[in-house]
């Protein structure tokens, strides 16, 4: 009977897969397009993102497809470059914590004992610190720029990965196939690399994608507080912040970069959710 129920779940999952692909595939395509635009911004953008003119705060027109901002800069070009800035920021902002957290979590989970206890304690302590608040002080202290953002995001983000990986490593460590590999003569590091890490990494990779969305929000919020990118750098959050006072008279200036943040976030979440449901499905199906 339990098999029958498992069968039911399997089929209902495949049922969901029938519906989901359309949404997550669209999302994936959007993300790829965004990446292409970001990479090719210097060739695609009609204007330099910093070129100013006295054509200020103009609504969309033939000359400026998305209008101009308060310094007369072309919003379309700035958005293209902003995507570039944001992607270049959020990938390491989510990636660095992943690397740090995965290494720490793997070591803690596999070694256990004192190391594990220490890592858990540090994670608990970090959990108890008002890190977002620190982040404000830290970025203010170190000055705006990618370095501060990365330090801040890493200090914040590694815990989740460390916890995730640690739990996963500990779970897999006691799985029959890992114990069997050890008995069959593999050394601990070999077992770690061959059997434990691939499974743990799949989890983190999934979370990484979801984390990109959080990083995007984080960068936008910090920019909103004037703690993100340097002023003048085209960045979506900063563009929203810069334009917010025009929201009544020149809505497009706020709406465009704002919508870009939301769309990007929704797409990232859609792809991330899909990946995580697939990862879950695989571990269930074992």
């Amino acid at each position, binding site marked *: 009977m339990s098999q029958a129920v498992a069968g039911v779940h399997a089929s209902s999952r495949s049922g969901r897969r029938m519906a989901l692909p359309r949404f997550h595939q669209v999302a994936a395509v959007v993300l790829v397009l965004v990446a292409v635009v970001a990479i090719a911004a210097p060739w695609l953008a009609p204007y330099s993102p*910093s070129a100013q003119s006295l054509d200020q705060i103009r609504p969309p027109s033939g000359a400026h497809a998305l209008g101009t901002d*308060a310094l007369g800069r072309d919003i379309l070009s700035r958005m293209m470059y902003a995507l570039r800035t944001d992607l270049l920021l959020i990938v390491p902002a989510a990636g660095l914590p992943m690397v740090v957290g995965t290494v720490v979590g793997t070591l803690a989970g596999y070694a256990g004992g004192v190391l594990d206890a220490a890592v858990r304690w540090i994670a608990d302590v970090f959990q108890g610190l008002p890190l977002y608040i620190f982040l404000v002080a830290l970025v203010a202290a170190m000055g705006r720029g990618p370095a501060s953002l990365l330090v801040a995001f890493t200090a914040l983000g590694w815990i989740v990965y460390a916890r995730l990986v640690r739990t996963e490593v500990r779970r897999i460590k006691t799985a029959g196939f890992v114990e069997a590999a050890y008995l069959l003569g593999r050394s601990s590091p070999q077992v770690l690399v061959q059997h434990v890490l691939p499974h743990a990494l799949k989890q983190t990779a999934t979370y990484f994608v979801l984390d990109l969305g959080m990083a995007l929000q984080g960068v936008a919020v910090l920019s909103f*507080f*004037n703690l993100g990118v*340097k*002023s*003048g750098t085209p960045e979506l959050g900063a563009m929203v912040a810069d334009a917010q*006072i025009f*929201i009544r*008279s020149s809505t497009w200036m706020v709406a465009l970069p704002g919508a870009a943040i939301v769309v990007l976030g929704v797409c990232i979440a859609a792809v991330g959710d899909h990946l995580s449901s697939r990862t879950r499905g695989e571990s269930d199906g074992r």
Partner: protein
Amino acid sequence: MRRSPRLVATALVLAVAAATALAGCGSDGGAATADSAQKPRRGGEVTVLRSADIDAWDPDKALMIETFETLPQVMEGLVRPNPEGTDVLPGLADRWEIDAAAKTITFHLREGAAFSDGSPVTASDVAFSVGLWRKNVAYGTLYSAITGTRTPDDRTVVITMSRPSTFTLSWLANGTAVVVPKDFDGKTRADFFKNPIGAGAFEIKRYVPGQSLTLARNPHYYDPKRPYLDRLTYKVVTDPNQQLLQFQSKQAQMIESVPLDLARQFSATERHVVEPTATVHAAFVNTASGPGRDLHFREAVSHAIDRDTYVKSVFGDIASPAKGGLPTGVQGSATCGCSYDFDLAKAKQELAESSYDGSPVVVLVDSSSQITTRGGEVLVEMLKAAGIKADLQPEEGQVMFDRYSKGDYDLELAEVSSVSPSVGDIFGLVSYMVQASDKDKVITTAFDKLDVAATDTARTEATTTAEDWIGSNLPYVPIANPGRVYAVAATVRGLAVTPYLSYPADRLWTR
């Protein structure tokens, strides 16, 4: 704009953050006349939004323009500036005599002047206060000409000076020169300034630091008609957008020194424009090290700046392109014959002649000021067009100031403002700042001459010397004389703001 609380340097300082924090206003004649046609009404209250709180009740601990604007409302000085900023008007003293030969100023205190606790203002109170100003750490130098006081009677104070300084009277109209009770009414200085009393039009009703300050009518004020308002509340709202929202939803009736971007969101009737203010918006050059040591480079920078475009982009036309190194519209100011022209070809030529090696120059701006960060973005583009690579580095006020003192910059975008009717005050600051390049002491000499100048001709001569020297040596590259915008609801009348950004709140009234 981005909200970020700003450390605001006073007008006395390199007023880097001046953009949003400085209050300014000149009653331009038209509005004033229209208002005076109607009779001020007594009663009512007004809520004023400002982006920063006062930073102290003790003027010597203050840096913020808000402080110097607010202190005299509670602790009135001997004199106050006239709305045009060209002269001083009676305050607690209703008249005074200057004796250049004797190097004295004799003040006659007003009949009925009293502190808000009812005790009368006497000559000994004033003498005590003058002593206070002179001793002050931060601003004592402003009163360095004063050697002492004499009090022939209860209503007369004679200030004696080491030289016939004309600046001194101007300084007395400034927010640092507040009159307090003798010996702080028996309290310590710190205790007194925790909840000070004065002889101003208002007394402190409720003060929540960082949030709001409510002033109520001083029942013992010497003018029985004023203040017109029963109550005046300053609310600290750092976010420009919130300022706009609260103003538009009628939660507040005034905004001090509206960010210029925001200014476009108010209707013409709600905009009170002060232009130009006694402020110079300039690019200060590190003349001690780096490319800025070379005059050719400084010339190149100056010629690279298209001041008309800059004014349009950064100030939205609420400014005038700089025609001199000193602010316009203050006592004794004179434009120089020199020109600050935009000439790209000349800029490139000067650059070619300079020792500039093509590496990026560091442009420091105050990240908390919308005007300077935006100005920085514009400046960098203009420099680029002339062939100067620039690296824009926004810093919080204090860090910026630290880097400035250490010479860790090439160019710095900043504003300096006058806070008194005398051009001398900004002049003094300029001389302080350009010491390094002023080897022949041209500026300091001119400053000293101006201080004792008795006639307008003498004043003009002194300022012209300074202007010429600034024009040809470019210790800083003047860009604009910016203006300020106040938002005022149609119901509020009587606003008159001086070019150095203060307004007598006792003259405000509501319809």
